[in-house]
């Protein structure tokens, strides 16, 4: 079933097929005389199956991938729209294979977290999850997202997964852009319909921000297309211009885009770099384009936060490494100093902002901003350790931050608020939960032995020779990060138990199933990061070969 030629298509389109089946189920409901509940359950099962298949395909792709070369592998390459030289070109190199695996894992975890699987009536009641509506005025909180308009939710979730996976495997610029936009729309609806009190605001902010980025990106893509040299299409025909990223990278290395005509007196490469960079920086999110993130996270339902933090943020650096670095090498070197400064601001500024947050999810969202700064700093340094650390940081952050959002969701489902100050002594009521939160917080603050440390360390050691002062300042974050996480633990879990939280149920199996696999991976990667590094290393070192910040 999974052949090297089709594996990536499986990973990409399995969720889409499941989404189509969900829609079909809804359409056929009157004919088959299904109960509403049966349709809901069917949609859930289809979602699990779709993302499960996608995960299996991603794991298979990871296994098939040969990390000892820097070549693009598992290629599927056919002409799609001959008139515009657009191809259906899927493939992975060391950079994208790690993201493909991450996407598969996080998608599946998010799907699990969307299930209304609760042990005990009390828990279900607390969460507002009693099926069949929630009209009881004694419980003012809205119905839980996992029982609200389920088929629609599942279909959008699956569509989102297709968009994400496709973005990471597409090697044709046009295809990439299509997937990029496909991912945007479901996200808007998932936040805007199933979100919290200010969901419309957050959803629109997210949408506009990202759309603004995509517009810039589209302009740059078109610009790159028309400045590309003739290339061969999949069928063997020769086309005047190409969307093929591998070919474009080759041309970029040969200096094709430096010869492009300047626009308004600005060099084309620099303009294209800036447009692409801003488009991707919004997704990272990089200061000062980061303010959509806390709002989106705070309002989004838990699984959507998980996907947002785990996968969507990674598309920013991924795009920069896929477009800017190979295609616009000179401009990238020209801009490296600025990237490092922005990374530094992200790291330190967001860490301080975390210290002042009162809302748990907002704190975690800002910590994401801070941690993504490491990726920026590492990639700006253009040393082997720096860039490997940057991409490893994407991977580890992609495992840790979903954990953080999951644990924030656990307490929100029970208490219906996330204000850190209002908790207290929760470790007595929910010991297992406290232990998992401890694990995730310590992983995020970079405790050696857990995944976050190695990537931070590699970024530091890679960036130090190049950006000595910046790295020194960035290292302050090790103190601040510890302070805000421990302070949050202190206020939430330690001290006397707030009687309001007496008798809250501890973790249930749904939460365990989503948290423990991530926790296990965080520990394993903490002691064996080479598992990822050996796969991504060759590609990245080829990528930065001969480059260094100007």
């Amino acid at each position: 079933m999974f052949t090297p030629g089709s594996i990536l298509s499986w990973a990409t389109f399995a969720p889409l097929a499941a989404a189509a089946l969900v829609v079909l189920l809804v359409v056929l409901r009157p004919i088959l005389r299904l109960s509403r509940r049966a349709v809901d359950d069917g949609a859930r099962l289809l979602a699990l199956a779709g993302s499960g298949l996608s995960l299996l395909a991603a794991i298979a792709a990871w296994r098939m991938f040969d990390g000892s070369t820097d070549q693009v592998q598992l290629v599927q390459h056919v002409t799609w729209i001959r008139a515009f030289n657009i191809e259906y070109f899927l493939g992975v190199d060391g950079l994208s294979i790690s993201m493909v695996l991450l996407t598969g894992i996080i998608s599946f975890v998010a799907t699990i977290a969307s299930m209304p699987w609760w042990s005990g009536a009390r828990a279900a009641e607390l969460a507002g999850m009693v099926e069949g509506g929630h009209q009881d005025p004694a419980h003012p909180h809205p119905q839980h997202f996992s029982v609200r308009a389920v088929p629609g939710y599942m279909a959008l979730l699956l569509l989102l997964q297709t968009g994400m996976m496709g973005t990471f495997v597409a090697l044709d610029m046009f295809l990439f852009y299509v997937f990029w936009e496909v991912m945007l729309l479901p996200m808007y609806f998932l936040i805007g319909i199933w979100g919290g009190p200010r969901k419309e605001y957050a959803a629109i902010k997210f949408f506009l921000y990202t759309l603004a980025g995509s517009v810039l990106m589209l302009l740059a893509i078109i610009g790159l297309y028309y400045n590309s040299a003739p290339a061969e299409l999949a069928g063997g025909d020769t086309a005047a211009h190409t969307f093929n990223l591998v070919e474009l990278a080759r041309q970029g290395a040969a200096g094709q885009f430096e010869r492009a005509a300047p626009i308004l007196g600005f060099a084309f490469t620099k303009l294209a770099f800036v447009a692409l960079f801003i488009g991707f920086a919004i997704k990272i999110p990089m200061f000062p384009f980061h303010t959509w993130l806390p709002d989106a996270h705070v309002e989004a339902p838990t699984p959507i936060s998980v996907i947002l933090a785990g996968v969507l943020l990674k598309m920013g650096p991924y795009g920069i490494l896929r477009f800017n670095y190979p295609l616009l090498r000179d401009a990238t070197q020209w801009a490296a100093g600025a990237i490092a400064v922005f990374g530094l601001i992200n790291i330190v500024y967001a860490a301080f902002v975390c210290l002042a947050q009162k809302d748990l999810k907002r704190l975690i969202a800002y910590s994401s901003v801070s941690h993504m700064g490491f990726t920026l700093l590492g990639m700006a340094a253009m040393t082997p350790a720096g860039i490997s650390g940057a991409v490893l940081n994407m991977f580890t952050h992609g495992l840790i931050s979903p954990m953080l959002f999951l644990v924030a969701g656990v307490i929100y489902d029970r208490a219906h608020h996330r204000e850190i100050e209002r908790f207290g002594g929760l470790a007595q009521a929910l010991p297992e939960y406290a232990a998992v939160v401890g694990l995730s917080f310590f992983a995020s603050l970079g405790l050696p032995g857990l995944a976050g440390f190695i990537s931070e360390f590699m970024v530091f050691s890679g960036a130090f020779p190049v950006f000595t002062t910046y790295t020194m300042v960035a290292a302050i974050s090790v103190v601040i990060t510890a302070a805000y996480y421990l302070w949050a633990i202190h206020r939430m879990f330690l001290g006397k138990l707030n009687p309001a939280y007496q008798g809250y149920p501890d973790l249930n199996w749904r939460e365990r199933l989503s948290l423990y696999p991530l926790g296990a991976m965080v520990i394993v990667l903490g002691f064996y990061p080479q598992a990822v590094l050996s796969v991504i290393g060759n590609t990245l070192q080829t990528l930065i070969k001969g480059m260094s910040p100007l």
Partner: protein
Amino acid sequence: MDHPVAVTQASFLWVIPALPLAGAVVNALLGWKLQRALGRRAVHAIAVAAVVASFLVALLFFTRMLGLGAEERTLHERLWNLFTAGRLSADLAFSLDPLSMALVLVITGIGALIHVFSIGYMADEPAYWRFFCYLNLFVFAMLLLVMGDNFVVMFFGWEGVGLASYLLIAFWYTDPQKAAAGMKAFVVNRIGDFGFLLGLLLLFWALGGAWTPRPAALRNLEYQPVPELGAFAAATDAAQAEALAPLVEGVKVGPTLSFRELRDQIAVEATGVRARLDGATIWGLPVLALVGILLFVGAMGKSAQLPLYVWLPDAMAGPTPVSALIHAATMVTAGVYMVARLSFLFALSASAMGWVALVGALTAAFAASIGFFQYDIKKVLAYSTVSQLGFMFIGVGVGAYWAGTYHLVTHAFFKATLFLGSGSVILGCHHEQDMRKMGGLGQHMPITRWTYLVACIAIAGFPVANGFYSKDEILWKAFTSDHLALFGAPVPWLGPAIYLLGILTAIGTAFYMYRSYYMTFTGSYRGGAAGHDGHGVDAGHGDGHDRGHAHVPHESPWTITAVLAVLAVGSVLSLFLGLPTLWTGVAPAFERWLEPVVAEVHFREAAHGTEWLFQLFGVLAATVGWLSARALYKDGRSQVPARLKERFARAWNVVYQKYYVDELYDLVVVGPAVRLAGLLSWIDKRVVDGLVHLVGAIGRLVAELDGAIDRYLVDGAVNAVAFGTAGLGRSLRRIQTGHVQTYLYGALGGALVVVLLNFLIR
């Protein structure tokens, strides 16, 4: 040390740390079930067995090491490659050399004893399994720290012990103060780690860590790595990284994280690494001194030196066995170990050595002065620990690495005895820690009393126990060192000055230790009336001790007293490791043991007579301290302390309040940090997000404007045509009267006009 270290490959080194890890994992996952199903016995059996087994395995390796030649005693085992990127590569590898062997034996040996002690001490703790899980976790992390073959594994342990310490200090987390103490310990340690990390990065940088060629526009060009190191080199696995390193006289040259390889590169002159390091500067400062000082900042955090010692006294909030194991015997000495481990690096920079020794001496004196006036028995011991750690840093600072490490070992014995003794006292007095409410405990708790006294003798520095030998050697070495520097230039008076501070501190040490002894064990019991004042938050671990008579102190169970006895005996017997050359004619056993692994530093030659004299000074200092404490505090009869306290009330208060250092920290560090956080958060919400909203608002405004234009201009034109036509029609309609005659007038008028025009235009 001008040749590479000979390495003996060993298998199953990993068993030593793995056993406690296994214990911790089992207790973490199954502990509460075991405790419920099989009772506490099952829990502590696992934990104690794990550490004891680990100790036995370590002994096995010790005997194997004894069988090897002095120069071959470096056992090494590589498990797997942690990460490789470019030339930066690190393995998960363990090594045991004489230095780490000594530490491993202390950790597992004393650790095992303290585990046994905890069985009695924590007997009534409901979360028994959790306590033993954390203890085992700590032992695991500490073993990683000392057995790590490279910086990364060491850092794993370094932070791991921090985590275990955090968990154990905040063990009774329902008390917010205890929980806060844990947090404080971790965060302050992180400040140290910040320095440690910078030192490490700087070291790599100086070693040629710039793996890519540096373009001329970059700053910091004072130092250029040798070309073959600086050339771009990429590797993705350990073998490739290995292959990239040029070999010089069998030594791999290039950036490395391994202690051994680093030492070899520096030791073997032909590699040129040492010459390059010596000349390296950054921002005009010598890199070596900076590296040493920054690494020492890490040690300051972990080993509670000025100004980062503040967490240690608060850490006494943890259960007493924790204080003994982590905050006296092992974890806090990690900094000392680190300096000794990197002695080859510190020995290269006289300035780094000078600062280490000076900070150590200042800390020793400072902490001792606070110790004079504390009433909480554990606080006295805490400040005493800070002070003794200062002594260790004097030792490793001036270059007497073996002496510093030896003091680490002796301190582990006597301070563990003292802490566990205090734990026994606290247990006997029903969780009373205030010495003013003790007294006369000698009759009730004889074993505790005698062991405590032996430890007092040891720490005060009488030659009948181990403390004298280590402390005396440190002070003597400090006095005879003339190589120390502070700002690059040698400062010959620094050694004697440090000696002076040290000997004064020694008097103080004897004073406050005997003060605690006399206040606790002599006189009459003062705690009866006050009774059991609760510590109610320690729910469940307090009440159970009141077997029978509630308010009479009682001797502790045998698990506790046996451990105390063993440790007290150890405090005496371990003196044989450090019998001075002056007495025996041969170097002390411990010095010979460590000689192959630590750097050699040359001290000023001094006459034997002088050395005898200084030993006498040491004993004298102890005697002075002892006698004055005896006069003031024995049996609690003397009124002098109270009068003195009144006379110097203000000064006394300043010291009693620990010089207000905590308050200073709040003012200078915590307050500004929190305020900055608030400010930045405000900026983020108001300014950055405000800008976003502004952009949004501008967008809306443009839209409104656009709408207006659309509505009024574009649509307006269309409408104007329509309205105009309609209006014209309306007004023209009026002339259509329907009267034929009116039309005729029109026709006539028209005809007239035509006629007139006909005449006019000609």
